[in-house]
């Protein structure tokens, strides 16, 4: 097919015409994320999912920690809190407990949530706190230039692991399930519709829900490991991900060149922290 007379035929429009503009702080766009970074794709899925749930916009609050993903809070046109490194979950805990009408989402990165914030993550899961945690895992600390993190695969290079990383990485679904989470899913940023569906499914639920998004970081992780562009990584996910709902999370380790097991690992119900407050304690006090 011959090329038509270039761009003249494609409508060029202003940012505020974008269908997601109402849920974004368009005055802060373009965002700081690099070309080919998957963070924006995950965010479009989140916005779509939120719209599909029909949850009123002013009843959703987003809390982030620090890092590239931590900037999500600043781009969403919702009540949003950009806290300190690793502390999104405890901040969100107070927020959610004080205001039960809110759906509180913690949206942050792997280093933030399972390294410096790891203690908060496991304890919040244990309590089955009413939080949806969206953990973007790009295997590195992107914002600070690609240091090794808690999910960096064995042998992957990082600016603080020039000989390759040799500490065993966390497998986030396994960690979440072992700690007591009630909904656990993993998708790559190429699985947009499935990711969106998971988010839509998890948003209205109660309890501690974790969705991990495997996401390209072309600038830091890919460059150090010669993995190519964001697009190359998307192709890599295409070739190397397997969908296996209900998979044993122990099989979900991620190696440098191995398979990425995706799917919904767990979807159960058990009493939440708030259930205990409102039912058990209330009964005890009422019975006095």
């Amino acid at each position, binding site marked *: 097919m011959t090329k038509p007379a270039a761009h003249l035929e494609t409508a060029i429009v202003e*940012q505020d015409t974008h269908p997601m503009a109402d849920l*974004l702080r368009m005055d802060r766009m*373009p965002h700081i994320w*690099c070309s080919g970074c998957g963070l924006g794709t995950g*965010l479009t899925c989140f916005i779509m999912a939120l719209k599909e749930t029909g949850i009123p916009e002013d009843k959703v609050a987003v809390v982030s920690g620090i890092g590239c993903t931590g900037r999500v809070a600043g781009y969403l046109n919702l009540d949003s809190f950009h806290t300190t490194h690793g502390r999104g979950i405890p901040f969100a805990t107070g927020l959610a407990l004080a205001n039960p009408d809110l759906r509180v989402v913690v949206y942050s990165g792997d280093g933030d949530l399972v390294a410096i914030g790891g203690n908060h993550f496991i304890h919040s899961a244990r309590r089955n706190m009413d939080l949806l945690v969206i953990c973007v895992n790009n295997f590195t600390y992107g914002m600070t230039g690609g240091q090794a993190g808690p999910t960096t695969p064995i042998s992957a290079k990082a600016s603080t692991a020039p000989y390759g990383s040799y500490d065993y990485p966390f497998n986030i679904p396994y960690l979440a399930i072992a700690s007591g989470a009630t909904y656990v899913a993993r998708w*790559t940023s190429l*699985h947009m*519709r499935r990711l969106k569906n998971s988010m839509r499914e998890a948003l209205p639920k109660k309890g501690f829900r974790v969705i991990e998004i495997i996401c390209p970081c072309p600038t830091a992780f890919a460059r150090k490991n010669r993995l190519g562009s964001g697009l190359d990584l998307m192709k890599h996910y295409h070739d190397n991900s397997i969908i296996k709902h209900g998979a044993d999370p122990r099989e979900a380790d991620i190696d440098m060149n191995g398979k990425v097991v995706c799917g919904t690992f767990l979807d159960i119900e058990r009493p939440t922290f708030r259930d205990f407050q409102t039912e058990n304690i209330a009964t005890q006090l009422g019975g006095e």
Partner: protein
Amino acid sequence: MKYWRKPLDADTIKVPHGKIYVVREQCKGCSFCVEYCPKDVLELSQEFNKKGYHPPIAVREEDCVSCGLCELICPDFAIYAELIEEGETTEETPKKTDKTEKAEV
């Protein structure tokens, strides 16, 4: 998914048709949309935007089925499709190409 035979109602199927809008200055030229559009509607243009990236153009806009995939995959909120009509067709059902499956692994 590939149909192994023509669906029975193929001659009355409605084919959605979309129009593409590009927020030119927001694009970072990652080509996710170009690569994963199931109908091969898009290409990166030769033009630069102010940030020095090549935003996409709809070179085969008539083929756009308004599936919304470009909007969903674009990390920069720089492209979207609008459903303009659902035309009837007597042709064969628009098949999902390999690329659709690729994007929806």
